[in-house]
């Protein structure tokens, strides 16, 4: 089961690279995504047994993140197949910069998308930190060509920064792994391990200074990939320059994968009695990310960059929740689900806006509700969801985390977080509203143009899912979240 989940998209990627027909390849993309989602659902309903010392296998946390990745990939695959069918194949001009570009070959793009799914599945399945490292680096390598789909200087610049910054960051995480081996080895230097379960079982026997050093390196390494400030510099560039389906996956699924790496390290620290140390570090990075992102959200002139900074902010929130521990960790996991659903939907809607207006400038995007009624409405609904308004699921998860933050002695954290959220709300609301409302400029086609179902369907579905999670969390999901939270050293409400 586990291997099938990993190998299915990998094989499909190889096939996609070989197929000549574009239509067939798009069908393969959607079919693979569907099959993967079905397998994942089966895996949720009846978790496959796995040996405790196995390197691969889905524990509760792995299943949770696998579910997010798989569901998102299905939605994005439908959307991407549609987008690829309407992409022009010749030379086209970027209106914002005036540069002429062509697209990367579609076969490469689709193959990389499928390989990306395979590597994300491997991340979720890794119970060995070495395998986890290999998988996270592999996600970087699979996504780099995806960002450089529109072959123009700006996306090349974004790809270069992404590849270099993330590779360097993740190399530091490798060092963290080595330090962890030292922390766990017997006095004669043998018997070090990287299997998460064994490390957790060793608990307080781990060497404290080495474990601390290992956690710092792992946090900085995977934190780079997760987009925690101040290592977030690549993120706004990559997420704004990538084609919209890819942005949706990067923000919604990939950031979570890195988060899972940090959570694994944190759970080892908690088991060793260093939960306070690692938790404080996480909370500190989280608050810093929230503050920096909020500052950049105000008056942001590029709406895809706006969404990217919003991702930084939400990653900060996740880190804060994980750092606070206890019930807040449950809240963080729930928020990871909600944020993924909403952010992926928003990026897909942004793709529709970009296709219609041919610009990413907020100032030149007016009257989306008139020009694209469905996408415009989804854009506004997305605003409510991403800023944590009830009745969306984000409200429930943010509320859970903040309530935990209002414990004696750390109220200031809650206050800082609330302040950042308020600034983010003000900044985003102003931008979103100015884009959705107002008259449509004459250069665009008259209002009321019909939108393709595949263009808004996936976003609608994801937003609806988030709304549903806000009203009622299914028992199965609740149980899984609680199980995962306890596995990672937290608690369920």
């Amino acid at each position, binding site marked *: 089961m586990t291997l099938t989940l990993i190998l299915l998209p990998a094989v499909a990627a190889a096939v996609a690279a070989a197929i000549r027909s574009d239509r067939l390849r798009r069908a393969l993309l959607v079919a693979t995504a569907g099959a993967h989602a079905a397998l994942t659902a089966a895996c949720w309903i009846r978790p496959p047994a796995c040996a405790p010392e196995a390197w691969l296998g889905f524990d509760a946390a792995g299943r949770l993140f696998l579910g997010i990745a798989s569901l998102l990939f299905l939605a994005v695959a439908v959307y991407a197949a549609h987008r690829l069918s309407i992409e022009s194949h010749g030379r086209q001009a970027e209106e914002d*910069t005036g540069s002429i570009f062509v697209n990367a070959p579609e076969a490469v793009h689709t193959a990389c998308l499928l390989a990306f799914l395979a590597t994300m599945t491997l991340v979720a399945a890794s119970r*060995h930190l*070495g*395998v986890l*490292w*290999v998988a996270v*680096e*592999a996600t*970087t*390598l699979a996504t*780099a*060509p995806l960002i*450089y789909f529109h*072959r*123009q*200087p*700006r996306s*090349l*610049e*974004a*790809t*270069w*920064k992404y*590849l*270099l910054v993330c*590779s*360097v960051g993740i*190399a530091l995480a*490798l*060092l963290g792994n*080595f330090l962890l*081996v*030292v922390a766990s*080895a017997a*006095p*004669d*230097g*043998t*018997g*070090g*391990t*990287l299997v998460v379960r064994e490390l957790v079982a060793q608990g307080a026997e781990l*060497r404290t*200074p*080495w474990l601390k*050093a290992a956690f710092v390196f792992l946090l900085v390494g995977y934190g780079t990939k997760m987009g925690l400030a101040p290592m977030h510099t690549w993120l*706004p*560039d990559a997420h*704004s*320059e990538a084609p919209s389906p890819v942005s949706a996956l990067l923000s919604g699924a990939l950031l979570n994968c890195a988060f899972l790496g940090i959570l694994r390290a944190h759970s080892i620290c908690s088991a060793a009695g260093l939960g306070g140390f690692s938790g404080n570090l996480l909370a500190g990075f989280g608050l810093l990310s929230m503050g920096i992102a909020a500052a*950049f959200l105000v008056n942001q002139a590029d709406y895809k960059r706006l969404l990217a900074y919003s991702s930084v902010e939400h990653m900060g929130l996740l880190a804060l929740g994980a750092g606070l521990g206890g019930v807040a960790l449950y809240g963080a996991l729930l928020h990871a689900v909600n944020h993924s659903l909403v952010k992926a939907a928003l990026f897909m809607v942004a793709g529709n806006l970009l296709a219609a207006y041919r610009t990413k400038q907020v100032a030149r995007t007016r009257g989306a509700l008139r020009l694209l009624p469905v996408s415009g409405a989804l854009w506004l609904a997305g605003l409510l969801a991403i800023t944590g308004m009830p009745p969306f699921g984000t409200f429930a998860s943010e509320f859970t985390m903040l309530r935990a933050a209002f414990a004696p002695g750390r109220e200031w954290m809650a206050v800082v977080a609330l302040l950042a959220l308020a600034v983010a709300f003000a900044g985003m609301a102003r931008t979103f509203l100015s884009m959705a409302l107002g008259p449509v400029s004459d250069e665009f086609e008259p209002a009321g143009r019909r939108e393709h179902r595949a263009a808004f369907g996936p976003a609608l579905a994801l937003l609806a899912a988030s709304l549903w999670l806000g009203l009622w969390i299914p028992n199965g999901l609740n149980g899984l979240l609680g199980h995962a939270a306890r596995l990672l050293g937290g608690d369920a409400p």
Partner: protein
Amino acid sequence: MQSGTGSLLIFLILTDLLLLGSSRLRNAIRIAAAQGVALGLLPWLAHGHLTGSALLLGAGSAALKGVVFPALLNRALREIHVRREIEPLIGYIPSLLIGTGVLAAAFAFGARLPLPWESPSPLLVPAGLFTLWTGLFLIMARGKAITQVLGYIVMENGIFALGMAVVEAMPLLVELGVLLDVFVAVFVMGILVFHINREFDHIDADQLDALKEGAP
């Protein structure tokens, strides 16, 4: 074996210093290749006996870093007609001076964090750390994209050297996965260098600044 490992690690430190002071890219590639080959010997020298996994790992790493990477980078150099780093962000003499300071810091750090067991050489941790930091410094202080790739390779070398302390604890399969990842990373970076050269007519990564906050 002790003095062999020691000499090898001193060689590693010296090559780092040479890299900090060399402006010719071809030379720098050669130095990094020598470093890679030397590191391939490290598992064998450090542990005194030749296990199958150490042999495979050492040979694979030496072949990759001593042959494949230099060939890749030299090919890139030929295609893009760049011979030397003309205006580094930090000059060569300041680089060397900073390098000396960093070296002292690496020794100080190595003394603070002694391995809990008998290390193959007391130089292992300082030399590995210094190589790691040299790579990071090259990435930050040099403008050319290709030098940044080189810096990444050097950084990886440093981590490899540090990993020698724990090589027996890392499963071979994972090590091979790591090597594969590094290979693909360098490969993809090499391709991007080509593209940067074609799109911009230069490979100065420090001039890639269209995406700054507030840029038009």
